[in-house]
């Protein structure tokens, strides 16, 4: 909030004075997006925010001279109409959980959370959030693919749909569609503690809520704006109580002398709170990133100290040396298999 002293016209520029109270700095709206109901709902909800009309979201989102970290503090929302393609093949660096037809889709580009290790910092020029408003086009495209073969669809990879639920409830818009297409298995990955969706919708057999969990110390250090571990556990319990299928994602796992000591008590805590038998499966992955994204992040003026560590390059992916990974994974598996069968643990 601006602390404008009207008598002197002076602004407290050294305090948090100029930081806006709103969730978004401004809302950019594509000319073509105005006619969609989601646009109207968002503009009604945030009627106090400045609206700037744009021709195409890429005119704003793809500008080359954006400062990712400052924009993250003053995120803007861009409402846009997505063109084809609506579905992408699942990337090699992600688990497919045994599904041969693995796809992902992005209703949103970017995330409201601010994780220091996130590849999105290197993937996009902008920290602003693009929200696509033409949900029917997404449905048509997903339907065409899922009628041909059973599909595993990750809908919350480059973002957090449940974290964004109070802004645009995409999963509400798609719930009926997912219900009508049982051959489509949908994974909604989240770090959010928001329980509204689980409380207001009946669980479906083909929806999996995948909660990303980390030790509280890692959350505090690297997962800015995300809810604490306890809140996530609470959300997991609610989802399970409501009959939702729940996946636990231990991803990314870090290897360093400090982090190494955090995981054992973390696993103990998680499985003392959650009945492991009720969990669908567990995914496990070490910190990894494509070489290009890693390089782009290191060119920015600010980045997490994680990017100063030494890593290995293997098939264009930067991560820990394989021997470290094997040693640490063996140790982690020893603990995790106390709670879960090995067949239910997926790793890359």
């Amino acid at each position, binding site marked *: 909030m601006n602390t404008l002293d009207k008598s002197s016209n002076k602004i407290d520029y050294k305090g948090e004075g100029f930081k806006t109270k709103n969730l978004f700095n*401004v809302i950019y709206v594509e000319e073509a997006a105005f006619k969609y109901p989601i646009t109207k709902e968002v503009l009604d909800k945030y009627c106090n925010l400045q609206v700037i009309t744009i021709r195409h979201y890429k*005119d*704003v989102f793809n*500008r080359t001279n954006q400062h990712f970290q*400052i924009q993250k503090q003053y995120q803007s929302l861009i409402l846009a109409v997505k063109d084809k393609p609506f579905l992408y093949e699942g990337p090699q660096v992600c688990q497919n959980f045994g599904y041969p037809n693995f796809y992902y889709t992005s209703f949103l580009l970017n995330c409201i959370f601010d994780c220091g290790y996130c590849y999105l910092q290197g993937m996009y020029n902008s920290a602003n959030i693009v929200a696509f408003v033409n949900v029917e086009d997404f449905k048509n495209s997903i339907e065409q693919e899922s009628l041909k073969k059973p599909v595993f669809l990750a809908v919350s990879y480059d973002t957090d749909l449940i974290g964004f639920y109070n802004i645009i409830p995409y999963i509400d818009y798609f719930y009926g569609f997912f219900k009508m297409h049982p051959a489509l298995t949908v994974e909604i990955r989240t770090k959010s503690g928001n329980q509204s969706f689980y409380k207001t919708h009946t669980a479906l057999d083909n929806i999996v809520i995948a909660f990303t969990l980390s030790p509280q110390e890692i959350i505090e250090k690297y997962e800015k704006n995300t809810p604490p571990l306890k809140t996530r556990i609470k959300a997991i319990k609610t989802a399970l109580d409501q009959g939702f299928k729940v996946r636990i994602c231990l991803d990314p796992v870090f290897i360093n002398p400090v982090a190494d000591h955090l995981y054992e008590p973390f696993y103990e805590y998680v499985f003392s709170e959650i009945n492991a038998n009720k969990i669908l499966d567990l995914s496990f992955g070490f910190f990894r990133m494509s070489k290009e994204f890693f390089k782009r992040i290191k*060119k920015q*003026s600010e980045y997490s*100290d994680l990017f100063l560590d030494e890593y290995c390059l293997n098939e264009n992916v930067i991560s820990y040396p394989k021997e470290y990974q094997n040693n640490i994974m063996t140790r982690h598996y020893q603990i995790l298999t106390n709670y879960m069968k090995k067949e239910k643990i997926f790793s890359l």
Partner: protein
Amino acid sequence: MVFIVTALMIEAAPIIEYYSLKKDMSVKAFQVYKNSDMVLIISGVGKIKSAMAVVHLLSIYNKGSKMDGSDVYSNDILVNIGLCGAGDSNYDIGRLLIINKVTDMDTGRDYYPDVFCGKNLPSVSLCCYSRPIKSKDMKVFCDMESAGIMEATKKFFYAHQVLILKVISDYLAPEKLDKKFLKSLIENNITLIDNTLREVKYLNEKFKKFSLNEEESKFVEKIVKNLKFTDMMKQIIVKDIVNAKKKGTDVLNVLGFSLESKVNSKLEGKKIFEHIRQKLK
């Protein structure tokens, strides 16, 4: 450094006075005024002149800001301050505006500065024309320089470092204005302009690129000369030093040995270069 571009002397005069800027007699192509942390250039009217002025300013005053070899002047800001016409009479003459979108009316191209400061100012879109606009039917704000500023700065500044501030001078009837009145429009807003500049400067400072201090910069220059490093080797060393600093390494202490080293050939320099890189890991 704060770079200010105005089209006319009547727009510049209140700023020159407020910040006690002195004319830089060494610059001939444009009128330039400066103090220790601000430079103002009077570009003349039109987007090509404003673009030329930006590039001219940067070529003269910003040598050495880019120690890391990037194309962005991350520690500076550039502000275009001037008058604009308004087709929208919802705002009074003399109102200071902050611009969130610039449209070049010749090319149809849009530019978007990231506006994170000046939240107490009305934030509007601006159309940049090549000649004065007199039609009263157009519900737009217009000027003649902003597109040139946006085009010229996008290679050198982040989107939040460029600020377009305009004061409404007329409702698209520019012929009725006198110089004294126009000057007073900027004068009356000078405190608001100053506050906004302070906000942007503070934000920029807060997110300033982690770089070398003066002592470290001198150190780098010395070893680059003594060890016959190429420009590329210098950039790599600077990057390594910045990373080492982020990890908390006392760089000058660790690299003290290299100050005494001297080489006779580039090959010898290369060996020490690798040794320095190892030490910084």
